[in-house]
């Protein structure tokens, strides 16, 4: 991240690519934006491993956008960092107007990196027509992993972590807390694991353990404090290393990504895993990819909630069309359709919706394998700051993986 800032400074010196937050078409004049966007194609770089989501994006969302004259081109990527990297590379190569990336589904560290390098177009989210449905006083909407958003990305969906498990292998009291989960793993070695950080979900798993290790997780929020982090992290690594022999493959190796973890669960090699997308389990259980006895639980330490966003790079070629997409994503009808199709939780403020629409959200039944929204949000904890997260990931590598 430091070098990205250095890069910006260097590029200013060389005169190649200012990297400054570009002046986007003014969202307040929405008719003008729509007029510009008509006929444009949006290259939306987003994680492509969720088939269900892909079908939705290429189907229903795409159709809605066609009516506005915008063609959606979903570019599937395996890791959001690749898209950010591409924008950085284009900036480095001096391409300031015709960037190939129009929009990225992003949050957390990747957003922070981009913000530090001034990669994002800013200033439009609060002026979008559908912004009326967003609660801009909610800290989950105004800051992303502790980084103030300042209008540089527009919210899309909510993620709440949860433990997914096979109820035939784990009883209710096994999934009550981190301690009980560890005890169960000890009694059933090789049936639990988590993805290796810096995978987004694997990182969350480590942070779940971290919150549980700290008696008072609130101490970890806010700026980094070595006096607080040092002893807690030492205890955390100890705990994770002690857990290793009970993990899949004896903790010899960790799955490279969350996809691999879910494959292990589907293949019946593990019985439980932590996820950021509890809603997506519904489809897999219905398809038979997951066993029908799949259930979810929130450990007593609470779960971690964050919002994910769409951000428009400064050099995007089709900024107006990207803004139209960002606006469409906030449409309550679309949020409801997405919730139904994929179990992706809405980021719009349900309180702001007319009661009929709110009832429609409540009425969505995702099946027995998925926790209802109310249960999922009962005990949520916010995310740590992005640089904290990066530190934890690096420390995990050194203290647990390479040990």
């Amino acid at each position, binding site marked *: 991240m430091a070098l990205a800032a250095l890069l910006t400074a260097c590029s200013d010196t060389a005169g190649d690519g200012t990297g400054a937050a570009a002046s986007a078409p003014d969202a307040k004049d929405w008719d003008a934006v729509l007029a510009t966007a008509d006929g444009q194609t949006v290259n939306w770089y987003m994680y492509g*491993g969720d088939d269900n989501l892909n*079908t939705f994006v290429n189907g229903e969302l795409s159709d809605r956008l066609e009516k506005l004259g915008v063609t959606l081109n979903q570019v599937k990527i395996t890791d959001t960092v690749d898209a950010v990297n591409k924008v950085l590379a284009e900036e480095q190569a001096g391409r300031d107007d015709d960037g190939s990336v129009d929009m990225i589904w992003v949050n957390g560290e990747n957003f922070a990196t981009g913000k530090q390098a001034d990669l994002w177009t800013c200033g439009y989210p609060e002026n979008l027509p559908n912004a009326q449905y967003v609660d801009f006083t909610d800290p989950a909407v105004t800051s992303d992993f502790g980084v103030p958003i300042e209008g540089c990305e527009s919210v899309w969906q909510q993620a709440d972590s949860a433990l997914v498990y096979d109820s035939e292998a784990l009883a209710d009291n096994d999934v009550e807390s981190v301690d009980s989960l560890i005890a169960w793993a000890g009694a059933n070695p090789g049936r639990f694991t988590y993805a290796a950080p810096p995978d987004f979900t694997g990182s969350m798993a480590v942070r779940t353990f971290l919150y549980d290790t700290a008696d008072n997780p609130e101490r970890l929020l806010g700026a980094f404090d070595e006096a607080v982090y040092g002893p807690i992290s030492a205890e955390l690594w100890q705990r994770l290393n002690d857990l290793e022999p009970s993990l899949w493959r004896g903790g010899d190796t960790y799955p490279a990504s969350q996809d691999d973890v879910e494959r292990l669960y589907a293949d019946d090699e593990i019985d439980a895993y932590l996820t950021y997308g509890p809603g997506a389990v519904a489809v897999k259980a219905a398809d038979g990819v997951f*066993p029908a006895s799949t259930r979810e639980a929130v450990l007593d330490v609470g779960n971690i909630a964050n919002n994910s966003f769409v951000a428009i790079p400064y050099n995007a070629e089709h900024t107006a069309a990207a803004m139209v997409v960002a606006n469409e994503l906030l449409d309550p009808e679309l949020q409801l359709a997405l919730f139904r199709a994929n179990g992706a939780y809405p980021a719009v403020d349900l309180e702001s919706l007319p009661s009929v629409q709110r009832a429609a959200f409540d009425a969505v039944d995702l099946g027995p394998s998925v926790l209802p929204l109310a249960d999922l949000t009962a005990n949520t904890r916010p995310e740590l700051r992005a640089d904290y997260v990066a530190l934890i990931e690096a420390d995990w590598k050194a203290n647990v993986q390479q040990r």
Partner: protein
Amino acid sequence: MRRAAVAWLLAATFLLPLVPLATWAVSGQWRYPDLLPRETSGRGLALLVDPNSDVLTGLTTSLLIGAVVTVLALAVGAPAGRALGLYTFPGKRVVQFVLLAPAIVPGLAVLLGIQVFLLRYGLADTVAGVVLVHLVPTVPYVTLLMTGAFANFDVGYEQQARVLGAGPLRTFWHVTLPALRPSLAVAGFFAFLVSWSEYVLTLLVGGGTVKTLPLLLFAYVRGADLTEAAAVGMLLVVPPLLLVALLSRQLSGSPGAMVGLGRL
């Protein structure tokens, strides 16, 4: 007799890994420890023809790039093969080294350095850029094959034709081309296959925008649904197998072709 039995057993072992691939492509639920899928499903095959999935796009892109790369590689490699096969000249060994090395040195190592320039000059994320970098592993093999072909080509036929009054173009069309057609077919076949199977180069230069089948398959293999992955895998493997079957006679007759096979 025993020898034949062992040989056929070996052959069966070589075919074994393809069995789970074909089975998974049509399976519905197939969880451990079942030896056979509990139910078959058209889900995987439906994905191949679903307009909402990327498979059809990937297929056409792969075919298009493969065709263009084949034509270009032949156009570039055949003359080079002629020069190397028919003449000796100072520096020939150096030229051979330069033209052959890209087939050996991993493309990834070569491409990392040039990526930022392709980006700058607008070749990244384009089909043209992908075609260009696909030439790096294909032209060396075409050159190698055509060098062997020309080395066995009796230039006397061309000279006879010229003596009898044919112009250079007619000579080429009626004398050179028919004699070289089998080798050209084999060389073209390899160029196509290398391009068809290429992943890393397409990923680096295409950046995810240029969607070829190998890129798609890679994403599916890392996903949780093996049925879909296997279906796409079958799509990726069937055309090469068909091509090999069609060209088997030419392939077995050409030792230089064998060398090219190693690249795949």
